[in-house]
């Protein structure tokens, strides 16, 4: 690594913990962009290598704060394989100043990374049961590490079903990977789009309409959902309707985040801090406020 890439850490001989620095949790570590891959017209996957060579180990569902020089810092889930933490993989949709800037980075550029933060998808609890994953749009990115883990330890689980919805065929993420997964016999993958032009011969309809017919045993299933809040609202209703108990439905929540470590207050959601108590919550824990507007 070039010396300039090194974070100027406070002088300390002790090994720095693998998680965000406990000494200065607001200070990012520099990572170098190794590869930028366009997933769709507005969504890109970045592969990042730690400047100090220490891989950032993480659990499926965790996120990092990515700092773009002089512009800002945003919460982005890790979308790579937890079994191969280096390079660090993030998939971002360019929606505003920071995400647009991050998506425009080139190989060799440097970003700041703090993390990993947050809790993980309950895969140990899901062992021995069917698993249904419901993804809406960019929500597939935070679920992808869980899929890698499920496939790596496939024998531990019952049926595994991935229901993935996108706005249009142009918005489908991880296309080749979805194709590959779809050809496996030990994974049911159903892809749908909200709307499509004539040349699409797949399913049309919101992702939650797939829930009633998906192949899982509702009384013996753990459900993981990530996507826009409205989509998750419909997803929980459909899952409950099929008989999945509320404590087995997990949702990854999103709120404005300025720190990720419980200091800034922005991510509060009723009694919860999404950054440190979440982002993943059993539906039962948030049910009393989930249907209320403007919480």
């Amino acid at each position, binding site marked *: 690594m*070039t010396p*300039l*890439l*090194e*974070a*100027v*850490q*406070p002088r300390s001989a002790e090994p720095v913990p693998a998680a*965000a620095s*406990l*000494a*200065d*949790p*607001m*200070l*990012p*570590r*520099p990572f170098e962009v190794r590869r930028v891959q366009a997933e769709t017209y507005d969504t890109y996957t970045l592969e990042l290598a730690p400047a100090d060579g220490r891989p950032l180990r993480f659990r499926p569902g965790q996120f990092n704060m990515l*700092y773009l*020089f*002089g*512009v*800002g*810092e945003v919460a982005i889930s890790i979308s790579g394989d937890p079994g191969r933490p280096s390079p660090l993989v993030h998939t971002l949709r360019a*929606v*505003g100043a920071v995400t647009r800037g991050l998506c425009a980075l*080139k190989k*060799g*550029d*440097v*970003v*700041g990374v703090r993390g990993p933060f947050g809790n993980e998808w309950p895969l140990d609890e899901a062992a021995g049961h069917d698993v249904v994953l419901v993804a809406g749009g960019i929500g597939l990115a935070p679920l992808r590490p869980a899929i890698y883990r499920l496939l790596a330890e496939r024998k531990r689980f019952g049926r595994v079903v991935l229901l993935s919805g996108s706005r249009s065929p142009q918005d489908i993420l991880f296309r080749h990977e979805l194709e590959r997964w779809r050809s496996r016999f030990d994974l049911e993958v159903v892809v749908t789009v909200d709307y499509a032009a004539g040349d699409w011969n797949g399913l049309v309809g919101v992702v939650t309409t797939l829930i009633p017919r998906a192949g899982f045993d509702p009384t013996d299933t753990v459900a993981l959902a990530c996507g826009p809040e409205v989509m998750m609202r419909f997803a929980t209703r459909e899952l409950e309707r099929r008989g999945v108990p*509320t404590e087995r439905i997990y949702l990854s929540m*999103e*709120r*404005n985040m*300025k*720190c990720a*470590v*419980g*200091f*800034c*207050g*922005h991510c*509060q959601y*009723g*009694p919860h*801090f999404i950054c*440190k108590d979440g982002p993943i919550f059993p539906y039962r824990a948030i*049910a*009393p*406020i*989930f*249907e*209320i*507007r*403007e*919480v």
Partner: protein
Amino acid sequence: MREGSTMNVLERDALDLLFTSLKERGFTLVGPTVRERAIVYDEMFSAADLPWGWTDRQEAGTYRLERRADDAAFGFTVGPHAWKRFLFPPVQSLFRAERSGSKMALRPAGPFAARYALIGVRACELAAIDRQDKVFLGGTYVDPVYRQRREGAFVVAVQCGQAGGTCFCASMGTGPRAGSGFDLALTEVLEDGRHWFLVEEGSERGTEVVATLPVRAATEEEIAAAGRAVERAEAEMGRTLDTEGLRELFLRNYENRHWDRVAERCLGCGNCTMVCPTCFCATVDDVTDLAGQAAERVRRWDSCFTIDFSYLHGGSVRSSIAARYRQWITHKLATWTDQFGAPGCVGCGRCITWCPVGIDLTEETRALRALDHGAPAAPQGGAS
């Protein structure tokens, strides 16, 4: 003479020696002083900077300084400032980034250390510091700015001899008597033509400082006189808040027409959060130099009343004032307890005094109780 005793008497004219002793120990003195018609916390150089002979008159939406009949040094309650401005600064650099070509170096902004002697901390304010300790020091991650400043601080508490018009610390169980959390605690007594301070020691550091002062052990009668002063404050308390079932009251009333009624008056200005000694919310700004080669990340106090606070791509989660007021008061009086084990309100009354339209959280709580749905929160929420 003061062997074994932790209650001493310091005469009025010797108070400045306490200031001198703290300065000699390397502390920067901060405390109450009169500025622009309010008593604020600012740097002090001697006891002469205290608001001798001043008091404040506070009501919902009003604050006025007045002369006292006597020349008490601490004869007022709490003003618009809170000690958090020294422990959790309103503007704080977090790190600097330097760029050359595509490379970037990140440098921590610290050290953040400062050694403040906080002079005149009230019981409710000690409780507020304790609340912020839980936020910044009590979790997995510790805020280095707060930690270094907090560890460096020397706390001189003052027992309240009178209560303000908007105070309700007795309801919140945080005052008016300060029992712990200080290095020294002073009770100011003006009785029978005498003017003196009872000095209580709360730490070894406090004891060391007292050893440098011309004190003598307090008599039983002097200790009793100081006790009477604090009892007076308790009896005069301007407000009360019924804390019975408070958390549940708010948790089951997310949907209540009361919130729209408050929203008709609330300006969403955020004054209540800026003056509150426990509010800890912050945002960050990124600034770059003109050449674009150096950037700095700065943390600033923020307020849940700003529309940007809850911004998510596409719009703010709490776009209505009703939702923002609900968030603020529910956090203070209910969800803070879930998060940190005690309410986020210590009953100091600042938010009542400094609200431009005089919105009073004790009144709003009473009004909510009157409209309480009563039923425990249904699992689906949807009560309307």
